[in-house]
């Protein structure tokens, strides 16, 4: 048994244990910390499975932004007077446990029975990368072969924003999302909020830029940019922008809109909707991705900031 196998077994055991602990633990705050750690360890598993793109996304969303969201929720719930519902009866618990166990067993059985080597489209994706001149197959799948799905997913993000904003009280409509954060201007948070963003922005752009040929891309880069933005907001250095601002709306739709326009160009001048002429594929895709990283960063940041709470004119 090699050292990596031992490490993998250990990692799997810790992830499983942490998962159970996160569900079983009573305090919201502890569960959140457990969940964030869980997300980071799952990212490690993805690295071991050589799916670095997924690992980056999992770390950014499951570990990072998801954690911030849950911590915020836990902080809000701390003051709320929670009425604990009556505990479910023994029969209910046992039947839930049995049924969950059976479902998990069926899933595990199905996964163990999967053919090995798995039938895959990876060779086809690699063989067709000439069409875009990008060598990261994941980016090719997202931006060329299954571009429609990616574009629609960006519209889902926009709908999530609309859903969050629709929770605003009518008087605050168009105003600033979330509370105005105050922090000690000489404190550690303000210090970090001045120190980290320049580094974070460079890292985010780097991850986005290398996404053309290496693991990384607009989503992972956008998540890092969003976290930098949130850090500055939480340190009270800047306020969230009012949601009625036209420039903000424009950034939020830039990604899917450019995608749509390029797609229509393909329908009109080229062979099909969302087809790129091979000579121009790389600049077109990079252009869409530049718009998308801005959209993703703004969307993720605003999703975490919450519904408009304060009027634009105080």
């Amino acid at each position, binding site marked *: 048994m090699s050292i990596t196998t031992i490490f993998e077994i250990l990692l799997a055991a810790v992830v499983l244990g942490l998962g159970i602990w996160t569900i079983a633990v009573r305090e919201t705050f502890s569960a959140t910390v457990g969940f964030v750690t869980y997300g980071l360890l799952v990212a490690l598993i993805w690295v071991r499975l050589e799916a670095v793109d997924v690992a980056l996304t999992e770390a950014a969303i499951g570990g990072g932004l998801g954690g911030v969201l849950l911590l915020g929720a836990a902080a809000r719930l701390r003051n709320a007077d929670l009425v604990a519902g009556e505990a479910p009866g023994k029969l209910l618990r046992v039947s839930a446990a049995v049924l969950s166990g059976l479902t998990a067993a069926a899933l595990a059985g199905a996964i163990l*029975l*999967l053919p090995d080597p798995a039938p895959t489209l990876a060779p086809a994706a690699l063989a067709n990368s000439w069409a875009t001149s990008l060598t990261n197959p994941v980016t090719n799948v997202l931006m060329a072969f299954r571009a429609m799905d990616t574009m629609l997913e960006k519209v889902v993000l926009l709908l999530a924003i609309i859903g969050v904003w629709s929770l605003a009280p009518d008087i605050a409509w168009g105003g600033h999302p979330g509370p105005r954060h105050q922090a000690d201007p000489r404190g550690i948070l303000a210090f970090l909020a001045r120190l980290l963003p320049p580094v974070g922005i460079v890292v985010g752009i780097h991850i986005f830029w290398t996404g053309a040929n290496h693991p990384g891309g607009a989503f992972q880069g956008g998540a890092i940019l969003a976290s930098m933005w949130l850090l500055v907001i939480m340190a009270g250095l800047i306020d969230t922008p009012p949601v*009625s601002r036209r420039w903000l*709306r424009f950034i939020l739709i830039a990604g899917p809109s450019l995608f749509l326009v390029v797609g229509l160009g393909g329908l009109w001048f080229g062979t099909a909707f*969302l087809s790129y002429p091979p000579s121009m594929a790389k600049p077109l895709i990079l252009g869409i991705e530049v718009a998308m990283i801005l959209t993703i960063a703004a969307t993720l940041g605003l999703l975490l900031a919450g519904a408009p709470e304060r009027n634009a004119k105080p």
Partner: protein
Amino acid sequence: MLPPAPALDAMTTTSGFLLVLSIIVPIAGVLLAFVLGDRYVKLVACGIVPLASAIAMAILFALPQSNGPLVYLLGAWPPPLGVALRADGLSAVMLAATAVVISGVAVFAAPDFSPASTQARTPFAFWILLLAIWAALNTIFLAGDLFTLYVALELLTFAAVPLVSLDGRAETLRAAMRYLLFALLGSVLYLMGTALIYGLYGTLDIVLLSRRVSAEPILLVAAALMTTGLLAKTALFPLHLWLPPAHAGAPAAASAILSGLVVKGSFFIAVRIWFNVMPGLPGFAATQLLAALGAAAIVFGSVVALRQERLKLLIAYSTLAQIGYLFLMFPLAFDAAGRFQNGGALAGGLLQAFSHATAKAAMFMAVGSIYASLGHDRIMGLRGAARALPLSVLTFALSGIALMGVPPSGASLAKDLLLRSAAGNGQWWWEIVLQTGGMFTAAYVVLVLAYALAPSDKPIALAGPTRLIRDAAPLVLALCSLLSGLVPWGPYLPIPHDIGSYLPSLGTLSKLLFPVLGGAILAILLSPWPHALGSSTARNTLATVVGPFRRGCLAFGNLVEKGNETLCQWPAASISLLLLALMFGALMLAAI
């Protein structure tokens, strides 16, 4: 009738670009409305609705001209690497239903959701979400790939949930949260199944999968998970805990969309998986289970609907029953050779979906008008409504008649098709369910009409003026449903030629009287409220005769309502979800 011509599926057909347009035109509307902001949202929607309807009509015209389904390869990449859009007859029917219902709702909602009349927040969210739902549904009806279907499901969920809590009251927020959590549970199950199928076959394209599938345990596990997830999103009994509060709490125009269209999205994907991906695999027992859930939904939904005090809740529970009706086609389309047939039963199911979409949307809007005018929607306070609001009550009555399956409604044609398949398959027990279902529908329609048509002691104070155009839209939708049995569906649905002549005859009369009389009896027996016609001597004699029997029926209704309350709790609903996934898996595995 369209043969599933797989020979042509690997290239774009001539009119294929229409399929792309039908998805991206509403999406362009969403983006444009979002960036232009509050004042122009309605204007954008007013421009997009006719345009997208015209595209849907163009697809309806183009499909019969084409030899087989319309196909479009996105990015010119053929599956399995790329993604294809395909329109067959089923897609066409559902595209039409969506276009008709959304246009009607848009006309109805125009005065309510204009930026000048209320706060800017609700019109902004409503119109954008309306367009988003349209794009999502069109994607569901056209997508040829299981993962594209997942993305479309997500689009649909994220567009539908905020509609529930549009007016911001605490109870609607709770309803929206319930809906979101349960719908996401359904999404996760569907996604897990999709991942398993990709791991097994290396493609998610529906046509390619239909050629590669074989009776393997992994596929059946995946199918069981996906089916259960979709049932949770469709709110088939017993996975309906989210539906009544969500559909009853939303504004009327939103309820019309949620009840008429949104639940049909996940239903349609279930049809695609069972009929197109694995037509030979689910096995007899699994189809029987699916329809048994449908039958239970009819009984539960109808009995609980008859016990509601509020009209909107009554209609929400009636949606529950009608969803059950949709699933009756599965065993009837399953032939003796163990394959799903692209025949009369499937056509009946889709027609049922079409007529329910139009009729239920009309019903919710009519009730919305009644609510807005009377200031309440208590069923017992409806006396005199027919005189004060004749158009709305007429719309309610017509859509109710259409739902009961009275000729020449689409539901009636659907019922004929399903009854014929049941007789052909020798599954007589579903004939009973089909007939009873019509009677139950008649029961709650008759109950409401009995109150609405009763004269009022005091004059009714209306909250505001009624607008003709507003009330005309639901009336048109109700007529659409009522007359849809006359539409030549032949080019789209496999309907036998010898069915569907609706000349007035004795048979027609009996088809009207049979459910109405049965429904009236059911309404008297099962509704706990005092009768609308008050105490006449004839009624008193009747009461003494049927009194003990009625008490028994009321006790039964009480029991059903208690059971429903338990099923609408999270623990029971979650356990039902797991149980159903396991049962479907076990039954399908047993069939190989």
